[in-house]
């Protein structure tokens, strides 16, 4: 609790202590005879103790020509009730209103802190080794790029960099939502915001503090709250119109019916005097004012969005604003860039068809021949063979661009390459029915088989598509520059509804535009990319989602949603979070306004008194706030 809240709590307790006996006396339950003026005077003590700031704000509001706010509503209603002799009700309403305010302040403050803690990846200091070999704590802002910083176990990595000494396990959960520690050693990149778990490491920084991952993420999250959704804008507009409207309605309620009754005599006969008639309607108008406080809706809607954004970022899903959360819940079509989202973007040997020699041997010859090449295909061949290559065994390497490599391995003539190379060296080869890149191998002019290399699917790709379907996505379309046969196979394997193959980068924008047209106004299209070369497409779609985008500035800039790791399941999760959040917002709006409308009607008809009014106001607010906080719990969604 803040100082202000503690203060309020004390005032509430003091006022309550005064109020209860006074109320019992005024109701005649405790038999003490007090003159009326004394009773008024005594009731003013708890009233002013608990509500002086509200009255003050109301007066200030009038003086600053901002008449209609909650304080004004409460002041007029309670003073009205007291003036009419309903002392107990008047004071009780102010007391309970403040209890509600206190609860709201504490609940909102607490959840705000919880959410901020979830996102607290801001490092406070960096360790620099000075000339004496001692560690010195400095402000990370002052560390220049290229400096060596030391990170001890338990500390946050303050600035992005590369390890120059030591090895350790890092907890990257604040960045990626992945709880499994990541092992890193010399030459590995470490990102700021991750926590060093086991060993001391020395890191050469590769960025300034404010260019580092942690700072960028924090900036993004902090800015997120300022992009307001339609619902939030609706609420602030609503509050602007609603309060004055209610005040005038209450005024009308206080004046028109009794006036009407006096003139026509209809309904007036039930009251002994004209005074009683007026009293009844003015009291109803006061009740009306109490009910009409808009706080429940006004507070719970932004709180829901904020909690939703906080919960999502805890799961490694950064959403740049609540407006995107809103759009995301309406996504019915998702377009994917193939490489990096559905496939890993790393090539892997998936099959070796060999004859007459052993598969291992085929791989060995291929890896040997390719040992000097850094092409991804050569890398995957070396990886598949799995043993270190001894370059001394390879001589006379001759690379033929667009064909392959000729080399002598252990004295044998080896040709490794595509069909063109086989034709060139005059070796009869076999066609392969597999899709992917086919590498043929010939040794001493004799065909020994071929190796199939393909881009591996992500483990979760298939599951992710199914999850998207369950989340209400009707179309999943893959956009790729690959050959039609490869695209068809991937699309079938993963369970996509559609694919577009052989696209040039600029064709992708046109494709997305065509898909947007298909979707129409109400259904939204999301585009998922790995952030490399697809910034224009990311910004063209209704929602651009960048995957595994840590470290890619362009992607973070262009995307509306950034997935910190590259798990495709997170896309469906983001949609589920947005749906839950929007659902809660709707529940709160409908529930709060519904209860208010019913109570307003009841009070106008004289069926609800002030006790019901304040219970409705505070009760609805508490329930709405508690409901809003549910948005935070998205881990198991």
């Amino acid at each position, binding site marked *: 609790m803040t100082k202000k809240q503690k203060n309020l709590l004390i005032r509430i307790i003091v006022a309550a202590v005064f109020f209860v006996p006074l109320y019992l006396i005024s109701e005649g339950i405790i038999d003490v005879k007090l003159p009326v003026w004394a009773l008024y005077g005594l009731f003013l003590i708890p009233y002013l103790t608990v509500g002086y700031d509200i009255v003050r704000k109301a007066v200030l509001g009038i003086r600053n020509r*901002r008449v209609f706010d909650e304080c004004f509503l409460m002041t007029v209603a309670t003073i009205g009730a007291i003036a009419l002799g309903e002392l107990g009700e008047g004071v009780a309403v102010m007391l309970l209103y403040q209890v509600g305010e206190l609860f709201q302040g504490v609940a909102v403050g607490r959840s705000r802190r919880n959410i901020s803690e979830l996102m607290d990846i801001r490092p406070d200091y960096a360790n620099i080794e000075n000339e004496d070999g001692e560690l010195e704590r400095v402000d990370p802002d002052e560390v220049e790029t290229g400096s060596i910083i030391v990170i001890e176990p338990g500390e946050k990595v303050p600035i992005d960099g590369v390890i120059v000494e030591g090895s350790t396990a890092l907890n990257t959960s604040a960045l990626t939502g992945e709880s499994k520690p990541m092992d890193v050693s010399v030459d590995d990149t470490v990102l700021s915001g991750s926590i060093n778990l086991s060993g001391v490491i020395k890191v050469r920084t590769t960025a300034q503090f404010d260019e580092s991952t942690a700072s960028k993420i924090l900036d993004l999250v*902090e800015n997120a709250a*300022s992009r307001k959704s339609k619902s939030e804008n609706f609420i602030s507009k609503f509050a602007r119109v609603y309060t004055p409207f209610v005040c005038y309605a209450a005024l009308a309620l206080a004046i028109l019916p009794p006036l009407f009754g006096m003139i026509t005599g209809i309904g007036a006969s039930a009251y002994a005097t004209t005074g009683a008639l007026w009293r009844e309607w003015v009291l109803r108008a006061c009740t009306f004012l109490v009910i009409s406080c808009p706080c429940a809706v006004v507070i719970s809607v932004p709180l829901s969005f904020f909690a939703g954004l906080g919960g999502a970022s805890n799961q490694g899903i950064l959403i740049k604003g609540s407006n995107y959360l809103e759009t995301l819940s309406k996504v019915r079509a998702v377009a994917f860039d193939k490489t990096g989202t559905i496939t890993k973007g790393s090539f892997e040997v998936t099959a070796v068809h060999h004859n007459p020699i052993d598969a291992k041997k085929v791989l060995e010859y291929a890896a040997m021949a390719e040992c000097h090449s850094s092409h991804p295909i050569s890398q995957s061949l070396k990886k598949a063979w799995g043993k270190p290559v001894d370059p001394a065994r390879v001589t006379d390497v001759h690379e033929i661009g667009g064909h392959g490599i000729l080399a002598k391995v252990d004295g044998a003539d080896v040709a490794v390459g595509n069909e063109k190379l086989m034709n060139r060296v005059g070796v009869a080869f076999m066609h392969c029915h597999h899709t992917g890149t086919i590498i043929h191998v010939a040794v001493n002019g004799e065909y020994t088989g071929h190796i199939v290399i393909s881009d591996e699917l992500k483990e979760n790709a298939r599951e992710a598509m199914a999850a998207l379907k369950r989340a209400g996505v009707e179309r999943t379309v893959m956009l790729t520059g690959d050959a039609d046969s490869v695209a068809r196979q991937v699309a079938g394997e993963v369970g996509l509804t559609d694919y577009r193959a052989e696209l040039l980068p600029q064709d992708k924008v046109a494709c997305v535009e065509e898909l947007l047209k298909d979707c129409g106004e109400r259904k939204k299209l999301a585009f998922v990319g790995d952030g490399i070369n697809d910034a224009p497409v990311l910004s063209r779609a209704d929602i651009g989602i960048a995957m595994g985008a840590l470290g890619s500035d362009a992607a973070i800039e262009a995307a509306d949603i950034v997935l910190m790791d590259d798990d495709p399941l997170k896309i469906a999760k983001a949609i589920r979070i947005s749906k839950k959040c929007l659902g809660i917002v709707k529940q709160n709006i409908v529930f709060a306004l519904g209860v208010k409308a019913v109570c307003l009607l009841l009070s106008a008809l004289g069926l609800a008194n002030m006790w019901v009014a304040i219970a409705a106001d505070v009760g609805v607010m508490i329930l709405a706030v508690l409901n809003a906080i549910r948005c935070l719990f998205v881990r198991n969604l």
Partner: protein
Amino acid sequence: MKKSYKIEVDCANCANLMEEAAKKTAGVKDCVVSFMTQKMKVEFDEGAEPAAVMQDVLKNCKKVESDCEIYL
């Protein structure tokens, strides 16, 4: 030029009022108040002096919400 200030405000509606009041202040191009992060982001007009403008912003905000605070 954009600057971000830490603020203290008790309710979401009051934050909206502050935002409006700040926007109307001379020298302020745009302003966003986030109740949840308790931050105010102000974009100043070309050539405006932030320190002076912020004094006016604070005064205008106090008018609509006497309890608010901006840490300058």
